[in-house]
């Protein structure tokens, strides 16, 4: 397996995880249920992403992994984490307003904020992938 294939596996895995987490968070808000689909799907998706990316990196070897996670990729991932942090911070006032307006209750907020916060860095990574940056 070369670095290009490994990059594709990483980008696809991260993107799928971000989309699953986003679907759960939005599902909570749209359906009003704290469990729009089984909660363990998000947990399995997270663990599967870690297993797939780690296994692929081990199979590809140290050199391919180093190229896949070269300094540009690491910088872009750190950028995603930085922006993801601010997404998490701004979710608090947003949901405070939503709760204040009785549009969501606390259990729904907990479920939605948790998954939306987790999805943010991966979705930002997806946006960078679509723009040809990673």
């Amino acid at each position, binding site marked *: 397996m070369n670095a290009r294939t490994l990059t594709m596996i990483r980008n696809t895995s991260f993107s799928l995880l971000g989309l699953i987490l986003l679907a759960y968070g939005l599902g909570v808000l749209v359906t009003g249920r704290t469990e729009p689909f089984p909660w363990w799907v998000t947990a399995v998706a997270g663990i599967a992403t870690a297993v797939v990316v780690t296994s692929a990196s081990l199979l590809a070897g140290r050199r391919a992994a180093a*190229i896949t996670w*070269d300094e540009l990729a690491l910088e872009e991932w750190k950028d995603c984490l930085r922006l993801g942090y601010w997404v998490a911070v701004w979710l608090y006032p947003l949901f405070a307003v939503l709760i204040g307006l009785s549009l969501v209750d606390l259990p729904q907020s907990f479920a939605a904020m948790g998954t939306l916060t987790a999805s943010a860095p991966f979705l930002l990574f997806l946006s960078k992938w679509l723009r*040809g940056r990673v």
Partner: protein
Amino acid sequence: MGEKTGLANRLRALRNARGLTQAQLAAQVGVSRKTINTIENRVFVPSTLLALKLARVLEVSVHDIFALEEDG
């Protein structure tokens, strides 16, 4: 990231002078082709370590590749 960096470079010209593609240079340095591309387009500023590796592969000094924009 995404804006111009203020660091001018002659990487594309030096690479072309040696008949290397971005992918070939990337392979020799040990980074992705996108990294070479973003450096050439002045979107990404490489680390000192990567700059030295590029200089070694291209057989020039770092100053031959990079310069501050007001100098370049």
